[in-house]
């Protein structure tokens, strides 16, 4: 399994978790971003994701490397989905493991926070009566 991965297929959080498991692990932390059915009270039909893929993979790998070094992780896996993602399905999975749990929690939260700031992936919310590129406008 690839550690850094972008796909139009459903994500597999279980495989991501297994990929970071190792005999020396004291804690695994997994973040799963799922598609929410409401945004500002408005009902969302589904999301559509697109990416500038080579750069997105590069920025995702940068996050995983930085987090692994900074928190002394065993490993971090980041998988992101593209295309149409229905409500409740996973848009992103970040899994990491380390000897101690505090580091794994901090690293996982850092990774999703940073992904949302730096990785060139864009999400369009599709409503019954229109669509909006998320965060595009102030």
């Amino acid at each position, binding site marked *: 399994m690839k550690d850094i991965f972008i796909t139009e297929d459903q994500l597999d959080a279980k495989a991501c978790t297994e990929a970071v498991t190792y005999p020396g692990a004291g804690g695994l932390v997994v973040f799963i971003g799922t598609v929410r059915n409401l945004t500002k009270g408005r009902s969302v039909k589904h999301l559509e994701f697109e990416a500038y893929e080579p750069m997105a993979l590069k920025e995702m790998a940068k996050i995983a490397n930085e987090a692994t070094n900074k928190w002394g992780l065993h490993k971090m896996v980041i998988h992101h989905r593209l295309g149409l993602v229905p409500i409740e399905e996973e848009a*992103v999975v970040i899994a990491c493991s380390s000897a101690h749990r505090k580091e794994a929690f901090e690293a996982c939260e850092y990774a999703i926070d940073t*992904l*949302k700031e*730096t990785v060139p992936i*864009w999400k369009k919310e599709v409503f019954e009566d229109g669509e909006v590129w998320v*965060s595009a*406008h*102030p």
Partner: protein
Amino acid sequence: MEIQIIAFGIAKDIINGKKVTLSLTDEHTVGEARRKLSSEFPDFSKLASLKFAVNANYVEDNHLLTADDEVVLIPPVSGG
């Protein structure tokens, strides 16, 4: 110098397409490309931010462009 720029997300909607070609006549920088783009497509000024990537790296406005560069518009990202 002619520069082709690739758009993603809302930037595609603003230029009404996947790519746009700009003529750079002054210092051939990202800053010049940004100014030309904003004057041709005023809607870019409404975005929360607009970054440029060259060959899959974020660059600043003083970055010099060459004709072979892959130049990509990065409107506010919203992954995750």
